């Protein structure tokens, strides 16, 4: 089966969806028209049927491996066993993109299944630089580092997040994964301006864009946005996506959906929307020149 590679050809070829286990059988059977697929690396580290299915799909789609458990912010360094598993998975599945998060999740032998926040200061920067360098050296490739959704800020943080990511990219040569929804959620939760936030990223480092839905939680008088990947992309986030495309160009774009997983068809509809938004944003960009 011939399929367009995302680095060549149409806009549609650069737009993908996150593949989750409940959709696997359907995607294997129907091979829907979508530019590329991304999976969570940790779900394919056991050499069982999930991995066999992934290799099967890999023949027809470019693949993104999105790690959620490497814990790039761990001061104790990366877990070597986990890094080895990731290396093996990368070697066997030959992904197009490999990404992780600016976050931590591991401490003292326990894996806390969440992307936990870091104090953004020089000390943390040194830790993350070291960890990203080791990851890139081990995997023999560039990785993309994603901005996590933020719910709190540490008092001793001294570096704004976009600047932190920009410096990380400069020092390590890593790329950035710009999660537009996360920027929106973080900005809303921590009283910042999302557009300004986005404008702080170095355009030539952005190698991928994520889009997802969020929900709202009430805490007394105040509302926090929760990045649960459990709904359609919100209109505000679509608007910010246009913004991102104008700044970063047509970076590979991914629709993520984890909680309340809908029929796969709805993910494809969101991907088509991304394609329309991208076409409009990039045409606008051309006019402006």
């Amino acid at each position, binding site marked *: 089966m011939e399929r367009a590679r995302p680095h060549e050809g149409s806009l549609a070829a650069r737009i993908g969806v996150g593949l989750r286990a409940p959709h696997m059988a359907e995607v294997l059977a129907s091979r829907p028209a979508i530019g590329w697929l991304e999976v969570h690396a940790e779900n394919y580290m056991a050499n*069982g049927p999930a991995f066999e299915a992934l290799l099967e799909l890999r023949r027809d789609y470019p693949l993104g491996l999105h790690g959620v458990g490497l814990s790039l912010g761990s001061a104790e360094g990366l877990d070597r066993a*986990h890094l080895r598993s990731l290396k093996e998975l990368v070697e066997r599945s030959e992904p197009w993109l490999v990404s992780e998060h600016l976050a931590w*999740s591991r401490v*003292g032998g326990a894996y806390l*299944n*969440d992307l936990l926040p870091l104090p953004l200061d020089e000390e943390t920067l040194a830790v993350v630089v070291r960890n990203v360098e080791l990851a890139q050296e081990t995997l023999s490739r560039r990785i993309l580092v994603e901005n996590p959704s933020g*719910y709190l800020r540490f008092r001793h943080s001294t570096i704004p997040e976009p600047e932190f990511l920009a410096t990380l990219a400069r020092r390590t040569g890593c790329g950035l994964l710009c999660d537009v929804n996360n920027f929106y959620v973080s900005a809303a939760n921590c009283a910042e301006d999302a557009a300004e936030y986005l404008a702080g990223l170095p355009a030539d480092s952005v190698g991928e864009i994520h889009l997802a839905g969020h929900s709202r939680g009430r805490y007394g008088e*105040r509302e*926090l946005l929760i990045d649960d990947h459990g709904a359609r992309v919100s209109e505000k986030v679509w608007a910010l996506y246009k913004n991102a495309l104008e700044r970063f160009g047509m970076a590979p774009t991914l629709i993520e959906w984890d909680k309340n997983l809908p029929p796969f068809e709805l993910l494809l509809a969101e991907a088509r929307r991304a394609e329309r938004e991208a076409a409009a944003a990039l045409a606008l960009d051309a006019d402006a020149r």
Partner: protein
Amino acid sequence: MRAALLEGEEASLLPLIEDDAPGAAARLAVHRNNLFASLTTVLAEVFPAVRRLVDERFFAYAAHAFLSRHPPKEACLAGYGEDFADFLAAFPPCRDHVYLADVARLEWLMHRASHAPLSAALAPQSLSAIPSEATPRLCLRLMPSLGLIQSAWPIDRIWRANRPGTESEEAIDLDAGGARLEVRRRESEVVMRSLTPSDFAFRSSLAAGETLSAATERALASDASFDLAAALAELFREGAVAALALAPAAAPS
């Protein structure tokens, strides 16, 4: 932060967090909720029948207690939950659910089987390569997905009545006798079946790495009419043998 998230000891952490509304504690709580909700979902997917037996709210309560004491050790969560059955067995609020831990053990074997690789099955002709003097030391390695469980309770019937999507109102007589079960992956599905006491003894012994002759003795002890040739043929016919191995020769005494 680990103690703050898992055990709620946040006194030393909160002063480090900006306290703007809704406050540092509420902000930290988002992460705690993410952590507990996501891992409770992981456990609920591995143990659907246990969850149904105790109901959703009690399951969340037991999962919370388990998670805070036994957080995952690795980011690949396919192996998470192995200790949950032992935890339930010792969890005082579950004392009256005498069969619960065994149902959890069964669900763990099913989960494990569903993630196991399919090794190539060995043909019975491979036995002919074993020199006769080595036969007493011969061990049979079974398929990685194969799991065996024995319970004093009819956990197969309990599981069938409580697996997801069933509406069974069948009353299960807990005194109807126990179960000796084998679970394994066949292509994309996991199958469970009952074994006779002698087959169960035979296969459990092999699975534990004992020699074929030790396994045969155990099967004969369970049932004097155990037929080794038939049991061996059956193992190979089912494609359950993954490899042959020789136990180390006994040291001369």
